[in-house]
């Protein structure tokens, strides 16, 4: 077991013929993910890697291949439309890697998806990895092994660090979920914690947060109320100055809210072990 993606995932790649899309499709196929279709409007009828059919629309791709998950690699100005298209074609799980989608677009996307009961991971995220089963995203496959630690993070390379440090200690992951660094995203920490709590393979959870917003504080409330599995956390941005966007659109302390100190306090108050630096995360997990 795992969450969200596994060896039965039938993946569709939106933007499959672009540079990014093609590169990561190759990587995902090499990892063993079942990539069943691609979509690039205007390139329907072509083939990618000699075996993946390309369609003009998501609807046609779903009808022909039974794809049940979509990953989006299209530029920011087209990404909201790509998400709407996937949702309207009946795809229940959409992973959007694209960075730089305007925040008002994301508010409209999120409200539309909520009405449709479609799950979006991201945007501005590295996607999902269930080691040994499926890679739906850009997380390097060779840095993680299968195991019992669920990982959820707003970050990219910081998450890779943790996966890799765990692997060096022989510790594996059930599923690694990158929820993305944007202020408005499709899936929150709490959503993923709830899935890990229910997943029998996951025994421990690592939560990697950062400055901005209050998603970590809400996660702390959920942990106190519902979580039985131990959670280890790390919050990046303790030295970040207020009012400055630290790379990620969502990583900003505004009006005194969203500081690392507030988040660490909220998590510690509900019994979460908070690592002082990234390497300590694997150490704490190993000793749980």
């Amino acid at each position, binding site marked *: 077991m795992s969450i969200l993606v596994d060896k039965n995932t039938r993946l569709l790649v939106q933007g499959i013929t672009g540079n990014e899309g093609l590169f990561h499709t190759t990587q995902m196929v090499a990892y063993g993910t079942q990539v069943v279709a691609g979509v690039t409007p205007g390139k329907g009828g072509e083939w990618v890697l000699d075996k993946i059919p390309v369609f003009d629309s998501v609807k046609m791709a779903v009808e022909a291949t039974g794809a049940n998950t979509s990953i989006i690699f299209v530029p920011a100005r087209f990404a909201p439309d790509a998400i709407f298209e996937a949702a309207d074609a009946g795809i229940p799980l959409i992973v959007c890697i694209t960075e730089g989608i305007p925040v008002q677009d994301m508010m409209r996307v999120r409200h539309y998806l909520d009405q449709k009961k479609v799950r979006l991971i991201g945007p501005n995220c590295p996607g999902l990895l269930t080691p040994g089963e499926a890679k739906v995203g850009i997380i390097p496959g060779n840095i993680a092994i299968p195991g019992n630690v669920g990982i959820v993070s707003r970050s990219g390379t910081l998450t890779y660090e943790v996966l890799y440090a765990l692997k060096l200690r022989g510790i594996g992951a059930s599923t690694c979920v990158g929820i993305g660094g944007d202020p408005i995203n499709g899936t929150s920490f709490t959503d993923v914690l709830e899935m890990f709590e229910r997943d029998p393979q996951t025994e421990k959870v690592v939560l990697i947060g950062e400055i901005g917003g209050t998603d970590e504080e809400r996660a702390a409330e959920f942990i106190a109320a519902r979580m039985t599995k131990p959670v280890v956390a790390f919050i990046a941005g303790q030295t970040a*100055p207020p009012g400055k966007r630290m790379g990620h659109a969502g990583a900003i302390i505004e009006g005194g809210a969203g500081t690392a100190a507030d988040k660490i306090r909220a998590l510690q108050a509900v019994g979460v072990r908070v690592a002082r630096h990234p390497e300590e995360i694997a150490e704490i997990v190993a000793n749980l």
Partner: protein
Amino acid sequence: MKLHEYQSKQIFARYGIPIPRGRIAETAAAARQIAEELGGRAVIKAQVLVGGRGKAGGVRLARDAQEAEQLATQILSMEIKGLPVRKVLVDEAASIEQEIYLGITNDRAARKPVIMASAAGGVEIEEVARQTPEKIIKVHVDPLLGLREYQARDIAVFLDLPREYWRSFIAITQGLWRAYVENDATLAEINPLVITRDQRLLALDGKMIIDDNALFRHPDLAEMRDVDEDAPAEVEARKYGLSYIKLDGSIGCMVNGAGLAMATMDIIKYFGGEPANFLDVGGGASAEKVAAALRIILSDPNVKAVLFNIFGGITRGDVVARGILTALEEVKPRVPMVIRLVGTNAEEGRQMLAQANMITAETLAEAAQKAVAAAKAM
């Protein structure tokens, strides 16, 4: 991207929001000329992209054109929170009965736009929110449905606005909503919106922040960016697609990934140093980007050591190392370089860097300690 008051008000005016008559001046003589046109009495307002300009003496009332010139001279020679004042807005002076706050922003937690209003206008809304939150009304707007007229009316009722102002207030609120949506703002704020003695509603001050990610569809707004107000190194970084923020410490950081970059700054502090900057060099860490990033980091005279923290995932460590070495040959840094490479082919990469006399480290903790020590030895 923050807009100046005069830019924000010009946008508001396009949406039917009444603003005072006035123009922008870059010299005291021009300020005098504008004041004369306005009939003498005028408000001279420093245009800088920081809060607190009123307290700093950057907003002054002139009784006549001559005084307008004197005050403009003073204000144009000021620095407010380190930013030199290059322009003043010369506005007609209004006589004020009441001050209202009206603003629209993104509520992250609710994932919706929120309109906030208060009869306690003229002061910072954060301050009102802290001290007297009951004086603020918050109305969330469905992003798919848009602002409904009844919502604007509800706000007017909450503010105890006399009925004769309702129609005009609703029109202003709707105009502000359109300005917020059509310009992809993350903040559109009128503070204060005043009732004048001659019984008009007037937007005396305005502020807009535009979503940087949406500038691709607003070339007109992108041109309004006042690069004079940004640190030169940040402007330079933007050209190369690098995300750089200058801080006050002595250890420069070059990291791939925003989260990892923040974590690297934090660990420097944890081991007793102070980070000089935030810098995300992006995915591949190519030689060209690394060289540009290094030049930017070293343009800060406080930097006594540079810490590279690169996670090679899909990009192999030896390729990253080669990129770093090429960049170092070009830039020839004068301070010690500590490099930590992890991930695929990291060992090979580390050997290449060690042979080139870089200080290398296997763990982030080790790298941070070495960088702190190197900076202290300088």
